[in-house]
């Protein structure tokens, strides 16, 4: 069964994924709204940057973050490398597109007419956003939350680079599996792997199940 170290890895993973998802919803919502509405010529640059983690090897992202957050970087002795905070920062970058893109798609799909109608009904832009845009984009928020969370649970490369592998502090499940395999502890590796497989499948089942009713992902 699971060792104490595995249990603490599970807790760290859940804490990391929850915190990362919350931060991403806070940052990603205004960013996605801006991307969905802006006519600015430089917008593709921002879109490309947001999408980078989709194609970049996670170790590359992790490497640059290590340089940036490490003791020799601008933070100096306040280095965040190999800390839980460092993990959160890394995860936010890594999972950014998984939150921003569903939100951007959901916002872009909202008929402008609703926003104009709200304005003629005395709703300020802020009021319109919360009373009209958010409820209409609810399926997008659901997808963004589930994908952001699940993707953070599944990350490996970035965490390894920036968090190291400190049990009880920065060791997450995916790395615990790696370590068990290295030590030929296949039984433990099976337990955790099977658990993660089940969790990921359940989350996606929720998304696609709701999608049938609400259209969460896809065209």
């Amino acid at each position, binding site marked *: 069964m699971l060792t104490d170290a595995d249990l603490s890895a599970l807790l760290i993973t859940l804490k990391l994924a929850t915190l990362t998802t919350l931060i991403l919803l806070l940052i990603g919502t205004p960013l996605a709204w801006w991307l969905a509405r802006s006519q600015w010529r430089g917008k593709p640059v921002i879109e490309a940057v947001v999408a980078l983690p989709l194609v970049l090897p996670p170790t590359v992202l992790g490497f640059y973050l290590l340089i940036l957050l490490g003791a020799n970087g601008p933070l100096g002795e306040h280095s965040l490398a190999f800390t839980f905070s460092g993990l959160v920062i890394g995860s936010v970058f890594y999972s950014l597109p998984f939150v921003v893109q569903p939100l951007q798609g959901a916002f872009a799909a909202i008929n402008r007419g*609703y926003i*104009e109608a709200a304005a*003629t009904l005395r*709703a*300020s*832009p802020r009021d*319109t956003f919360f009373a*009209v845009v958010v409820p209409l984009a609810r399926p997008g928020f659901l997808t963004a939350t589930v994908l952001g969370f699940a993707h953070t649970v599944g990350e490996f490369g970035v965490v390894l680079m920036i968090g190291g592998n400190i049990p009880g502090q920065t060791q997450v499940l995916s790395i615990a599996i790696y370590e068990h395999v290295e030590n030929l502890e296949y039984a433990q590796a099976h337990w955790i792997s099977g658990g993660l497989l089940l969790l990921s499948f359940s989350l996606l089942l929720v998304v696609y199940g709701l999608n049938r009713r609400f259209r969460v992902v896809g065209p």
Partner: protein
Amino acid sequence: MSLEIRQQLRRGDFQLHVETCLPARGVTAIFGPSGCGKTTLLRAIAGLEPRVRGRIRLGDATWQDEGHFLPPHERPLGYVFQHAVLFPHLSVRGNLDFAQRRRGDGPGPGFDEVVALAGIGHLLRRDTANLSGGERQRVALARALLTAPRLLLLDEPLAALDRQAKAELMPCLERLHESLSIPVLYVSHAIDEVARLADQLLLLAAGRVVACGPLAEMLTRLDLAPAGSEEALAVIEATVSGRDADFHLTRLAFAGGGEGRELWLPGDSLPTGRRVRLAVHARDVSLTLQPPRQSSILNIIPVRVDALSPSGPAQVMVRLRAADVPLLARVTRKSEAALGLHVGQALFAQVKSVSLVE
């Protein structure tokens, strides 16, 4: 109170250039062919076209001026879009509450009054997805009224509706006209709607104001589009002055028509003293030099020829005046020659059909 509009917009080939000042009372129809800028003008007044330059004032309130642009949500107006645009995540009641909660402190019609006027009491609990086209527009109208607007903008609310739905919404718009003193701008490209609802007419073509004035005058000016159309008609404001009980006829005296100018209309349900609007199509009016002694036509009015204009190769449109009230008659050029029609000539108009429009 008046509505001052000076708006300029350039978008590709299209150019909007409107300078006009309308009396802000009753219903002003903005009339013109598709693509002439009617909807753009309405959107500009609402503040939904931020790139439009110029000035908009309603009474003392400046909505737009040099360096000043009041955002749409701060303009006290109601807007009914062509496709209703009800919020799909809210019920009918939720849509109405959305507007009611955001209205300012100013006086305005109450919830129950608006619901009754729109005739949507039985729909309040319904989901907006399950409404017919006519029901959607009535909910949209009620929603706009609940913001207590000082100006109501209607963008072809009937255009997307079938006959049945039009028949439902029209009485609702007429009740609105009678019971609320909110000035209305009504965009339309259908002359029959305009004849029923409007008091003033603003004619637009290719982004410019062609003419603007009282409905009866605008409809009968021979240089303007409405009199050139197949459906050309005149409207007459009249008062019920009596009835013929034996034959079930209503007698109508028309304002400014002078002594002895009256019309008979089948039916006798209207109370005496009631003001009504009548429509007389140009194709239903014929001309004669002598009043016929024996004719099935009841309505024969002494008129004077005011203007003539060719209407196609075979016909001519004649503008007539019964004292101050303008009328139109479409006759053949052959008849024009036979009667020797000329401006100033006194003759008689035989009105084959009069319809009550309000």
